[in-house]
């Protein structure tokens, strides 16, 4: 990408002088970006790791205590539950988002009237700020006035005056937040996969059909292999952002009831900022890093393997 894609330009003095200066020139162009990324990203990242090994609190600096925070967290049932729920939340939401997103992409890939308009409105849940749509879900899942409860009562499944405690019951609350996350994530996955689908030539499907392939076989042996690279990228992003989700939970349940919907990010906020124990909060946040690295590695090596199988020339 960076080098060697163009033929060497003719040797002139101006050009060779530029070649000498090129590194400095590049450096000057990178200065604004580096200022932001070093002072507000790289430095805090390192600082966070150091803070996770101190007993720092709001208003007072901490002393180095080694891995004590982590030791403490490993015996803390709230932390372990939050980690477990974060994994379940990510796994369930990502799988469903992928399945429904792919299905929606295939549906949208059909020729139909108002195609562009329908594709445009599909993206709206993704455009609207998460917190604001989460507030709508908060209201939709309200104990007394939930529209679901009302529908169930009207349908006679629930007796009049009987309520479902959507966000008050631990299990139902977990289902509700996962549902909201799926709802928000589908458009992004669907539209991106749709773009991938449109690069697949229709003649491949025609050839497969003439060879007697069923609909499923066409998907499995034509669509899926061609779509794999884009799936890997989309799912890495999806898993990453689901795993580190904060705002949806904070807007709907704040981790409650009884910590049932606590994610690692919300627990970190609660302990670190609200509880003032910055060191412990930083440790919870840092504990997310290995999971994130694992997610990135899986898709990275997955992609590499595919490239190796197909041979680079296929791209």
């Amino acid at each position, binding site marked *: 990408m960076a080098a060697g894609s163009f033929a060497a330009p003719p040797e002139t003095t101006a050009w060779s002088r530029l070649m000498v200066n090129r590194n400095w020139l590049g450096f000057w*162009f990178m200065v*604004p970006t580096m200022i932001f990324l070093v002072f507000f990203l790289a430095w805090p990242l390192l600082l966070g790791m150091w803070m996770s090994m101190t007993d720092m609190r709001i208003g007072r600096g901490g002393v180095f205590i080694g891995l004590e925070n982590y030791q403490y967290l490993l015996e803390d049932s709230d932390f372990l539950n939050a980690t477990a729920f974060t994994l379940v939340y990510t796994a369930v939401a990502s799988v469903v988002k992928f399945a429904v997103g792919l299905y929606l992409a295939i549906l949208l890939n059909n*020729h139909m009237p108002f195609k562009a308009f*329908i594709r445009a409105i599909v993206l709206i849940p993704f455009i609207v*700020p998460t917190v604001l749509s989460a507030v709508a879900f908060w209201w939709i899942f309200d104990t007394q006035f939930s529209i679901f409860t009302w529908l169930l009562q009207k349908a006679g499944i629930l007796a009049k005056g009987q309520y479902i405690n959507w966000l008050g019951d631990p299990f139902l609350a977990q289902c509700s937040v996962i549902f909201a996350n799926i709802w928000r994530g589908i458009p992004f996955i669907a*539209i991106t996969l749709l773009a991938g689908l449109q690069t697949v030539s229709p003649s491949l499907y025609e050839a497969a059909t003439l060879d007697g392939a069923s609909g499923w076989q066409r998907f499995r042996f034509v669509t899926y292999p061609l779509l794999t690279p884009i799936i890997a990228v989309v799912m890495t992003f999806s898993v990453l952002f689901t795993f580190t989700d904060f705002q949806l939970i904070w807007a709907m349940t704040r981790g409650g009831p009884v910590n049932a919907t606590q994610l690692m990010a919300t627990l970190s906020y609660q302990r670190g*900022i609200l509880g003032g124990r910055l060191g412990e909060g930083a440790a919870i946040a840092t504990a997310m890093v290995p999971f994130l690295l694992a997610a*990135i590695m899986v898709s990275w090596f997955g992609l590499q393997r595919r490239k190796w199988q197909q041979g680079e020339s296929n791209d």
Partner: protein
Amino acid sequence: MTDAALKSGANAGSLTDHREGMAYLETLPRKLVTVYMPLAIILFVLLFPFYWMVITSIKPDSQLLDLENSNPLWVSQPTFQHIYKLLFDSAYPRWLLTTMTVATAATFLSIFASVLSAYAITRIRYKGAATVGGLIFLAYLVPPSILFIPLSAVIHAYGLFDTPFALILTYPTILIPFCTWLLMGYFKTIPYELEECALMDGASRWQILTKIVLPLAIPGLISAFIFAFTLCWNEFIYALTFISSDHNKTVPVAIISNFVDGDIFRWGSLMAGALIGSLPLVILYAFFVEHYVSAMTGAVKE
């Protein structure tokens, strides 16, 4: 809306499908069941919360809390009192203004930095450009929920706590990696010969960037702008952590913390607030939807 699409779909049908390869194999009733029905159901689920938001924000309180005598799915006497109260009786306009200012400033800063770095990586090709490009991409994978605690310490140390600058300066860490990658894709599509000629004629890199590359990359700049602006508007955890006083809050944070009095939820105002807070983005999106979709898919395909 979807009903209308469905009906006209039934009329126009697959007869007009001359371009799609094997569409002639699909009969209309079959397509109705396999395509239009599932699509209508998914669209309904995706759009219902917005309908619910709209209907709640124009419902009088009496109907809001009375499910016995009124149909919750409809409003019989719509009222604008929630919206009126929000706009004239609360600090909502102030929050909107703050959010708008922060988002605009952070977006312009990020685009300025991203244009320079994307140009340097794709065109100046200095030593280590590929590595730096990779590092910037990695920066995008560092989520705010890992950084907000140490960042709050940094913000305190720099004396920025509870000022809009805390947000204007931290949002670019999310936006720059994204915009840089988006713009790198656009810059690569601009023929290098144009720049080579200009270089030979003695133009400086800065002149090339501002006079040749940027005018050609305007679609890319628009996409980057919309994306960055949307990301800013959506950001929550930094705004929640770095801002403490009421009048400096952004819309999402204020909605969550200022519309609940103890156990009493003012659902009408809450929904009106969420609705109006989403409108600027939806309007922006409506104007630039083509840019948005192509950039989103393009950025991922890179």
